[in-house]
């Protein structure tokens, strides 16, 4: 009754790995290739972070050890954390697995924006290299991956190390946001026909929620970093008490990012486990709907729990209690997940692969980490444990024994699909057992050390504190684990050189990626599959529906023809744009003029991407078959971007409001702001929005000339607004309110200045469109391009509406 699945090796005529030369990887926009590049880069950085960790473990093996200097140790622990989080686990989870598996699982030919995908990768790579290049200029960053202010102020950390850290993170943040935006749009809009949200593979659910979290979590971090960079370069005092501010602001902004980040790291792992366990238990996932709901709920709650990182800062009992409750609440959906995995195992028919072993180890280790997490939700317990090795043990169980183990499970699981080669199970076993034993040897005793009072981030400790035994034990464990990871490399190389060729469906899988050859052809699916249920491929194979064909492999095999599918053309602009961005960073720490060159490159590359295809409206999306999707991906992307930008401005406005009226010296807002002038510019900006819709209407009805003129008029009003702002800033400046003068000065200039910057970008955008329309590059069917410019412009307008009332009108109220 079941359809025979071709178990023999079926090869695509041209798979994504072999097509084109090595140089073609530089301009590739293929999600699978980008995934592979993410994976390789992350593994390289994992080696680096592992090296740092081993060095630290040697240093801590004995009391009063002198293997590393204090300075080097601090650099190493800072970069170990930064690297593992930003350069290993996050890019592995989203960049690598998200790219390799997600589009295949939803039955798409690529992600929504292939070139943006390449851009994310290149920005990630250059950002990472940029950050590590500080090694050549006076050492690695050394203020911790959390970079608590005011230690990061230039006064306490002179030199350029922290500059590299802050600017590097800003660059990496751009990469993360772009990548997440891409995935979000892809999942929302590009699922195969019939694949409703409730039929998506659960891994895709997790990537979806993780992407949303990136979009909402990175804006506060970006704002925090912007303040930090301003403090370090421009002499403001957002985090120092000099002008009446508080370093706690950094902690709020950072953990507002930092806690969702934990789930950004963990959710892809949950997703992988939820695929691996059912596959090797030969059972469907238990409680699919509950799993999906728990995923969404975890994402949602994780945005309101950041304060549990700050119980020791004295937020006051009310805030402590609120954060304690919300943090404890997150244990419930997490518990649902763990129990559902166990229930999936119940009466399963197991296939004991290495991947499955990793998944089982994940469940146990993650549960341990989660349970200690409940303790940290309780302030009285947390006050004893935070900042100690107990915390180190906790988050290594969550992120190492959790996320990383899941990623290893996923690596073994998707390796045949990705490379077309099977992995050696024997090497896999050695790898698993060494890693697993080593991991637990290293990190379990850290619970004891923490309870024994050993603080984190210390490069040395005295003798006689009773910590010696376990520290030595941990160090030995670290080396066992490192050996285990070495076997992973051996297994990978062995597979690539001598591994047997993989069939399309080596695990008898449940999801769509197993329905196409391994490695997949460039276009993924010869024919976009139609989905009728969860576990779509399993249904096709065994779903009691003999008439239903198992599409891809069979078709390919029988006919041997490659269908004519246009795949997105390679593009050189992503790598160019990323290089421009990296130049901006280099310029900031070295010579400011380089930044200008970088900005110019960025601008040209954006224009290049925007006008790369002469008939934008149709190509390439139409030929990829995008017209089967319900929405326009680009518009979904635009709105998502706008939403994420709102959070950026919210963080700026929140800071402004929080610091309002705390200036140590005047003049303050109510003494200086001028309402008549600003009222006028508000009116100008509102009217520019009107002109903008008129311009769009012009383009939409094909009246290019009218549209262009309205565009010029809109940009003109924008310039008037900017002129008003320049006048205002100049006047304040001459009245003594400089950026560094007082809290009002720095928050006002930053908030209003960032808005002004957005107006400026909008003006450039609109002018670019207007000039392009001279060359007939914005025909009627491309009116969408104008609509995007318009959406951005209106967004700038609505932000101003808020700023005008909150900053200008309301500020006069207080104290009046």
């Amino acid at each position: 009754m079941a359809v025979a699945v071709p178990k023999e090796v079926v090869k695509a005529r041209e798979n994504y790995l072999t097509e084109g030369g090595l140089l073609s990887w530089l301009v590739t926009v293929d999600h699978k290739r980008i995934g592979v590049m993410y994976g390789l880069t992350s593994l390289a950085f994992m080696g680096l972070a592992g090296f740092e960790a081993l060095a630290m473990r040697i240093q801590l093996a004995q009391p009063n050890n002198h293997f590393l200097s204090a300075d080097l140790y601090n650099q190493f622990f800072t970069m170990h954390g930064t690297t593992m989080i930003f350069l290993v686990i996050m890019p592995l989870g989203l960049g690598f697995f998200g790219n390799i598996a997600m589009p295949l699982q939803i039955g798409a030919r690529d992600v929504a924006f292939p070139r943006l995908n390449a851009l994310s990768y290149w920005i990630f790579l250059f950002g990472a290299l940029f950050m590590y290049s500080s090694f050549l200029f006076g050492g690695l960053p050394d203020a911790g991956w959390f970079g608590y202010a005011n230690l990061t102020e230039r006064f306490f950390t002179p030199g350029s190390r922290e500059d590299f850290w802050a600017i590097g993170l800003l660059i990496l943040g751009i990469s993360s946001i772009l990548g997440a935006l891409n995935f979000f749009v892809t999942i929302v809009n590009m699922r195969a026909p019939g694949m409703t949200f409730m039929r998506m593979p659960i891994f895709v659910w997790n990537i979806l929620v993780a992407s949303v979290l990136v979009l909402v979590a990175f804006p506060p971090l970006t704002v925090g970093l912007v303040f930090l960079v301003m403090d370090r370069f421009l002499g403001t005092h957002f985090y120092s008490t000099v002008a009446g501010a508080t370093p706690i602001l950094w902690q709020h902004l950072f953990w507002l990012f930092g806690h969702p980040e934990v789930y950004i790291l963990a959710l892809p792992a949950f997703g992988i486990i939820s695929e691996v366990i059912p596959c090797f238990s030969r059972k469907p996932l238990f409680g699919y709907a509950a799993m999906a709901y728990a995923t969404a709920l975890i994402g949602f709650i994780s945005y309101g729990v950041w304060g549990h990182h700050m119980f020791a800062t004295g937020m006051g009992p009310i805030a402590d209690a609120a954060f304690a409750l919300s943090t404890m609440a997150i244990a419930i959906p997490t518990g649902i997940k763990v129990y559902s995995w166990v229930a999936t195992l119940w009466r399963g028919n197991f296939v004991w692969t290495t991947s499955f072993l990793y998944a089982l180890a994940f469940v146990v280790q993650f549960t341990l980490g989660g349970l200690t997490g409940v303790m940290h939700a309780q302030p009285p317990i947390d006050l004893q444990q935070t900042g100690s090795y107990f915390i180190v043990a906790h988050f290594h169980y969550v992120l190492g024994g959790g996320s990383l183990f899941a990623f290893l499970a996923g690596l073994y699981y998707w390796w045949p699909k990705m490379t077309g080669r099977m992995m050696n199970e024997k090497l896999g076993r050695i790898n698993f057992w060494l890693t697993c034993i080593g991991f637990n040897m290293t990190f379990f005793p850290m619970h004891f050390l923490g309870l024994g009072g050993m603080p984190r981030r210390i490069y040395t400790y005295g003798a006689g504190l009773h910590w010696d035994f376990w520290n030595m034990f941990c160090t030995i464990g670290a080396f066992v684990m490192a050996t285990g990871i070495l076997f992973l490399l051996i297994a990978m190389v062995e597979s690539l050189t001598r591994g047997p060729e993989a069939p399309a469906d080596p695990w008898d899988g449940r999801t769509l990626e197993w329905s196409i050859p391994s490695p997949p052809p460039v276009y993924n699916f010869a024919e976009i599959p139609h989905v009728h249920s969860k576990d779509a491929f399993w249904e096709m194979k065994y779903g009691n529906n003999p008439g239903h064909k198992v599409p891809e492999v069979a078709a390919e095999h029988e006919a041997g023809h490659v269908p004519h599918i246009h795949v997105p053309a390679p593009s050189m602009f992503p790598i160019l744009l990323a290089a421009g961005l990296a130049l901006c960073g280099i310029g900031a720490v070295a010579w400011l003029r380089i930044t200008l060159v970088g900005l110019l490159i960025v601008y040209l590359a954006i224009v290049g991407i925007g006008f790369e295809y002469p008939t934008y409206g149709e190509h390439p999306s139409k030929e990829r078959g995008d017209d089967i999707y319900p929405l326009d991906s680009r518009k979904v992307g635009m709105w998502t971007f706008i939403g994420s930008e709102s959070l950026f401005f919210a963080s700026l406005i929140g800071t402004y409001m929080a610091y309002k009226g705390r200036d140590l010296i005047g003049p303050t807002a109510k003494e200086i702001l001028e309402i008549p002038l600003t009222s006028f510019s508000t009116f100008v900006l509102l009217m520019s929005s009107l002109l903008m819709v008129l311009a769009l209407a012009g383009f939409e009805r094909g009246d290019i000339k009218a549209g262009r003129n309205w565009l010029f008029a809109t940009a003109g009003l924008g310039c008037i607004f900017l002129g008003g702002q320049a006048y205002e800033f100049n006047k304040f400046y001459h009245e003594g309110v400089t950026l560094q003068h007082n809290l009002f000065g720095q928050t006002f200039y930053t908030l209003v200045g960032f808005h002004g910057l957005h107006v400026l970008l909008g003006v450039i955008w609109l002018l670019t469109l207007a000039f392009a329309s001279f060359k007939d590059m914005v025909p009627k069917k491309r009116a969408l391009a104008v609509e995007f410019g318009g959406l951005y412009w209106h967004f700038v307008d609505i932000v101003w509406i808020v700023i005008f009332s909150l900053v200008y009108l309301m500020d006069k109220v207080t104290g009046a």
Partner: protein
Amino acid sequence: MTRSSVSSELFEHPSVPLGVALLAAAYIIAARVLKKPVSRGQVASFAAALASLLFALSGPVERLADERSFTAHMSQHLILGLVFPPLFLLGTPGWMLRPLVRPPFLRQLAKVVTNPIVAFVLYNALLVVLHVPKVFDLMCRNEAFHVAMHLGLIVTGVITWWPLLSPLPELPRLSYPAQMLYLFLQLIPMASVAAPVSLAETVIYPYYATSTPHPFGLSPLADQILGGLFMWVGAGFYMTAVFTIIFYRWARRDDRDQPVILSDNGSQPAKARA
């Protein structure tokens, strides 16, 4: 009033039992006149709705709310806005309401007010205005205004739940994802009213500051914080529960709506994989 019999409590606000009786009578008469069957669940739900109304507006809750306890007053509002309306809508069959919207004018009006945006704004505007200290104080001291406000809460409550539980296909419910969005947004005005109340450092509702001692020995401030938390946390959990229910209904609907895959002979539908 120190000790009062049940009847005197009931008739202290005669409008309440009267209104409840009227609703019950209307329900029975409608069922009789239109001669269509009402399911047992619907009757139970409608009865529960009326009971919640009685519970909230008469008896000990009302007495406490009237005289001494802000928390009781908040519970009253929560029942009126969050408990009664869904029970009422679940308990009333569509055919019973259809004649009401048959006249073109009423129909037009119903179309407008049950538009999700309008429905959202109506209820939440009332909620926000009601908790402005001056308005609240006025309400506590002026009986007529108080009754009007409570009626307003009930009516706008029903309207605001309409997009989620409408019994009439011609004034339809939102799609499940939109329902979840709608519900999520409902949390915001609720929290923005409740948060300042529960975080206030002074008593902001003077009516309860001067009243007789609280029955549970709470200080006026503690009473106010508790009332705020009822609204914030209690209503938050309630809404989350409703949200969860909608999510699972969505999930199940998606499962059920699978196109039936016909087997080869075209006769037997494939086994549903529920």
